[in-house]
């Protein structure tokens, strides 16, 4: 695969973020091609979520540029970026807990709906028609993820696993070109991880969505990612195809320390072989 040679959908250049005196991200360059599944990995505190937050404008970087589909994102205010086609899930879910699941997905379509104050006062008219279409899209997305039975339940009352998937549904409902997934496998029971990996590939296939995911679960990363970038202390440690990158001694060292990395290197290679067997 030569994704890196296609015109990139997301192009991050020289991204630098400082929190006070701490250099959280240092001159980071990333290129993600349309239709690619790109994984961002690294030890805790490496700055992975910070990268996503910069794309979402939850954090303002000190320097750098983020081009999305040829547009400079950093010049756009936060609320305009969803409309460009960027969906997002959060590590801490961040659902609208008091709303029903369906209303969560309606709210997520805010950027694509038009009705304002005056239209909203009316019990009929374009506002209601547009809402009906949005509701239809929401139900389709819930059905796609097998969540249809939860539609009318308050989002905050559901079990964690379901809430996690609703976060994904909320990110996908607008059919964004790019979805940012912050640790989709965290808290997912081990026996369901394979299922999640299959779903990630399905979404890409069915919706043509580009995925940028942060993940600690290397099994998922190896199974789904086209390319991986390893961050450590805000800098890029390695980038490339998962198997090569994850057996890179520098990467193992960053994760595990020098001694343990030697012992695990062998095991990691075995795991990757196991995955490739499972795939073929």
């Amino acid at each position, binding site marked *: 695969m030569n994704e890196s040679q296609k015109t990139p959908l997301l192009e991050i250049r020289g991204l630098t973020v400082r929190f006070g005196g701490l250099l959280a991200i240092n001159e980071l360059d990333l290129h993600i091609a349309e239709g690619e599944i790109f994984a961002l990995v690294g030890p805790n505190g490496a700055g992975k979520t910070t990268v996503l937050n910069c794309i*979402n*404008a*939850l954090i303002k970087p000190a320097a750098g540029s983020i081009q999305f589909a040829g547009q400079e994102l950093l010049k756009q*205010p*936060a*609320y*305009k*970026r*969803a*409309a460009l086609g960027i969906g*997002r899930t*959060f590590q801490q879910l*961040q*659902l*609208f*807990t*008091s*709303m029903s699941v369906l*209303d969560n997905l*309606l*709210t*997520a379509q*805010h*950027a694509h*709906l*038009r*009705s*304002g*104050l005056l*239209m*909203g*006062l*009316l*019990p009929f008219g374009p*506002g*209601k028609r*547009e*809402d009906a279409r949005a509701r239809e899209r929401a139900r389709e997305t819930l059905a796609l993820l097998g969540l249809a039975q939860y539609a009318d339940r308050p989002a905050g009352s559901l079990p964690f696993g379901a809430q996690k998937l609703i976060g994904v549904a*909320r990110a996908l409902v607008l059919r964004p070109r790019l979805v940012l997934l912050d640790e989709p496998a965290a808290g997912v029971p081990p026996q369901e991880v394979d299922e999640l990996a299959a779903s990630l590939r399905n979404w890409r296939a069915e919706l043509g969505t580009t995925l940028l995911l942060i993940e600690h679960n290397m099994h998922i990363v190896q199974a789904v990612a086209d390319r991986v970038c390893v961050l450590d202390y805000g800098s890029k440690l390695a980038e490339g195809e998962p198997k090569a990158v994850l057996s890179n001694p520098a990467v193992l060292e960053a994760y595990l320390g020098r001694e343990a990395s030697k012992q695990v290197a062998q095991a990691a290679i075995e795991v990757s072989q196991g995955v490739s067997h499972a795939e073929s």
Partner: protein
Amino acid sequence: MASEQTREGELAALDSAGSETQRKTHVNLGQRLYAWRAGLAMLAGLFILGLIPTIYDQIFGFSSGFQLHNLSMIGILIIAALAQNILTGYAAQPSLGNAAFFGVSAYLLTWLTTDLNQPYWVGILLAVLASALLGVIVGGPALRVSGTYLAIATLGLVTIAGALLNLWDTTAGRQDYQLNNLPAFLGDDHALYYFVFIIVVILIFLVYHLLHARVGRAWIAIRDNETAAEAFGINLASYKLQAFVVSAVLTGLAGALYATWAQTASSSMSSLDQTIAFLAMIVVGGLGSITGSVLGAIFVGFIPILLGQLPSPLAVGSFQIQVSILNTGIYGLLLLLALIFFPTGLSSLIGRGGNLLRRVGKRGGTQ
């Protein structure tokens, strides 16, 4: 009519069938009534609202201490409670500034009609428009701060507005600011009652739809999770300001109606006491609930009426208590008790009642 006939036809056809079918019909009817509960409750409510003046005439006559006039005041409070609840219960902005709009709007209406001899309707329209404008002017800077800071800043606004209105009264050398030039029919308690409650019903209808539309969802999203709201394209500053302006417009209308009701404007309308009354309504009634706004306004509105039944000054032992000053104390106490024992407000009681009904209904259905 047509649908009713077909329904009766269905029922007749089912009646002629066996007893098993009959029981099914019973369940279907119950289920249908349940499905229409909102509509039925609304119709019943409207019916009762319409009948209240007649009942009042039958029971109390015109000499009673219980006055229809006071019910109109509760209607006005419902509008103010809706306004505060949109801003605080839905959009989660703890603004205490609504009393300022309440007072300023009342003075504007009185000034326009009494001093400038404008027609009442022009006065009320301009008072509401001015509230919207003031909402934009004040809301813009106020909403840059959040939480406690917003509460304190807006409370300052109330105090300043109250002081300025008081100063105006003093420099103009008047004891009370009489509202003249009212349309004749508003002098009649029955007409005033219908006038106020028609407005209340229309506003509840409009607000209900607004809260279930894109704008209302954006407000609730801001309340539930600002981070996610912003990531999904909600312009926080714009929607907070919209909530502020809608709230100012409704409060301004309530203030103008209150001046109409009292036929006078007073600087105490923009005061800490008024702010506490508004807060007590939504906290006691239920934050983020239209039903809660209505119940809270009724509850809080009845307290001065009930206290008005007491002789004033009230003698407790050797103390003489001015009954009117008890109001705010009781509101404060209610606020405290509600926050401790009833953080979800009176409206949650109705929700619990509904759950009970549903459970009973389900049990009936599975038999």
